[in-house]
């Protein structure tokens, strides 16, 4: 790696070190440690909302293009100021609280929901040495924190005293609990192979182009994990908790103004962090040739986010029983098979293990879809009469 590259590669790390050194000249040691935490924290706290703002713009633009229209292009060049205009609009909207609502919890829910969304940023390795906190239990931490997201959704749906919200809340709980199981199990082969729970060392285990996604179990695991992440952050085709056509807006039906914006912020930040985790676990994180590490990381993450937006532009929504069926009857058995396949791949090196693993996965996928009778589209015949 040439010097210019390595300078670019570690530009943010060096920037932070330089700032800390500067502070070290004036302040005692404990303040430097504190400053180190504060700098990382502030960067993450700013990164989250900014990413969310521009994700909304990106989403609207991409969906617009897929639907043969422009998307927002009025505020600023290419509509770049649109998120700011939206933000101002959200701030100035009237804040409506239903009469019978549980006022305190109604207020707390949108605030609480942002917390786990922001907390996941802590373990995301944005680049070489760019993890805010390289916890030894990184992956487990991420799974644990994202499982908390259910609670604020419950709070919001219950406190609104609205039947649509209630049904939306129920759906969320069922969906999140169900999809957490295959999601966790899909990560297991990665942990088995990298022999660590720390996100940084998982990325290090995928040195060069040995990304896990290039192995049969990695590909299967990635697809399952990605489907589960889409379900976890309630994005189409799994957006049942806020299914517009049935439940108006699901659990945030009764929210307006900034509270509503906070729900959206959490949703988009979740979309970002979950994509980032998927990149870390399967797509080699910041690993990649030629470009600086953080460029690779953001490219891959935005590619996954683009895929999420693409799903949104293409698919109708599942029904609630089908959603559960897919999690329990299709994804869960596949992850179990995938764990065994990963072991096989590990103990039989070379082409034999590779092909064997791929064949087992393909056969089990075909078998499972064939066994899941209600999932398969039927053959239909249409008569053309005179």
């Amino acid at each position: 790696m040439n010097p210019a590259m390595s300078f670019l590669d570690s530009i943010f790390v060096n920037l932070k070190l330089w700032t800390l050194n500067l502070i070290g000249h004036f302040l005692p040691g404990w303040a430097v440690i504190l400053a180190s935490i504060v700098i990382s924290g502030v960067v993450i706290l700013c990164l989250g909302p900014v990413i969310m703002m521009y994700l909304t713009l990106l989403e609207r633009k991409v969906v617009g293009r897929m639907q043969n229209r422009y998307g927002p292009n009025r505020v600023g060049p290419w509509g770049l100021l649109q998120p700011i205009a939206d933000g101002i609009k959200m701030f100035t909207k009237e804040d409506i609280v239903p009469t019978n609502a549980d006022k305190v919890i109604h207020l707390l829910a949108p605030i609480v929901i942002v917390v786990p969304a922001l907390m996941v940023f802590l373990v995301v390795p944005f680049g070489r040495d760019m993890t805010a906190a390289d916890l030894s239990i990184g992956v487990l931490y991420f799974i644990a924190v994202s499982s908390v997201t259910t609670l604020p959704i419950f709070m919001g749906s219950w406190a609104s005293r609205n039947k649509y919200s209630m049904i939306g809340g129920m759906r969320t709980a069922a969906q999140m609990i169900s999809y957490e199981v295959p999601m966790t199990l899909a990560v297991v082969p990665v942990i088995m192979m990298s022999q660590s729970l720390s996100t940084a060392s998982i990325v290090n285990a995928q040195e060069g182009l040995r990304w896990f996604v290039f192995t049969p179990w990695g590909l299967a695991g990635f697809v399952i994990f990605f489907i589960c992440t889409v379900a976890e952050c309630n994005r189409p085709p799994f957006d049942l908790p806020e299914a517009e056509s049935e439940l108006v807006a699901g659990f945030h039906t009764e929210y307006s103004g900034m509270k509503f914006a906070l729900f959206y912020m959490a949703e988009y930040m979740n979309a970002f962090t979950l994509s980032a985790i998927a990149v870390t676990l399967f797509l080699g994180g910041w690993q990649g040739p030629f470009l600086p590490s953080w460029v690779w990381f953001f490219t891959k993450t935005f590619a996954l986010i683009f895929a999420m937006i693409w799903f949104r532009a293409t698919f109708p929504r599942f029904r609630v029983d089908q959603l559960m069926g897919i999690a329990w009857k299709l994804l869960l058995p596949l992850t179990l098979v995938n764990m065994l396949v990963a072991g096989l791949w590990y103990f039989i090196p070379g082409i034999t293990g590779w092909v064997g693993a791929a064949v087992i996965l393909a056969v089990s996928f075909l078998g499972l879809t064939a066994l899941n009778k209600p999932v398969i589209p039927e053959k239909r015949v249409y008569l053309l009469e005179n």
Partner: protein
Amino acid sequence: MSETILNEPQTLEINFGPQHPSTHGVFRMRAVLDGETIRGLKLVIGYLHRNHEQIAENLTYPGVFAYTDRLDYLNSMQNNFGYALAAEKLAGITVPERAEYIRVIMAELARIVNHLLLVGFLLNDLGAFFTPCLYAVRERERILDIFEDVSGSRMMCNYFRFGGVKNDLTENQLGEIRKVVSRLPAFLDEFEALLSKNEILCMRCQNVGGLPKDLAVNAGITGPMLRASGINYDIRKTDRYSIYDRFDFKVPLGQKGDVYDRYYVRILEMRESVKIVEQAIAGIPRGEFLNAKTLPLLRNPRLFKPAAGEAYGRIESPKGELGYYLVSDGTPQPWRYHVRAPSLINLTVLEEMCVGQKIADAIVILGSIDIVLGETDR
């Protein structure tokens, strides 16, 4: 919906509408749920009642045309057609050859517009984020441009007149129609690639909201909904009104009568409509576009006084049998004017189709019936 269901401890009554994103207007459903499953469902209609029939009885016969546009506002050409047929039958007016061809072209274009929108919004009800809908609107836009070019208005066409149509079609316009229609098969192929085999759509639509044959017949269901249930009944074929007997087209029939069949029958009907329009453009004769004898009557509507009597004119509108019943007492105003609205009658089986399904299905089933509240409530 019996009250006993309401009193069961596990049920939850929920109100869809009148303000709800997917009730297609101001329509209300009271659904009783057990978990997510629908146990009972009751329609509450009439929020958009505009006194259509009474207004018409206070107007002259030609003056009613503008109001028929507003019945099924996505589909005004067909509404005009039905009313024109009824009034012509009542007054014994003949229609010139060329006008008949123009009428058929416009009616079939309107059918395509209607089915395109239906499929688009059905997919919105299924939860697709406007993509199929906007593709449909993209093609509909070209047809609406033709409507504007020909009649003066995109949606409220008010194009038909007793004994013909308002304006003639120029060669240019015919060429334009040919161009638009020739695009449609390719577009429908793209549309189908996006939808017809999509597993999610199939899962959501197949075996959902099935309508058995006997129930469909007994409830007076007509249109694509009836044909999706497998009954070959198309008024274009049975009545052969206007000049439909001259065109070669088929009536697609479904077998199960579920939402998927209703969706797919409509796709096939659009393909048949394209064929009809192509044949009509090829065969359109020269001649007058309006019966010259009725022109003075239209210039002075009070002279239009059909002899006392009654007439019923019906057409195969995209939604079903659209019938107009007129009673004249010899004055310039209809003594009785009644519309047999397919949207309303097809809606009556909603509860039978929904009970036992999930909430999400109820929305989709409602979407697949294809109602327009302007016509349902009148």
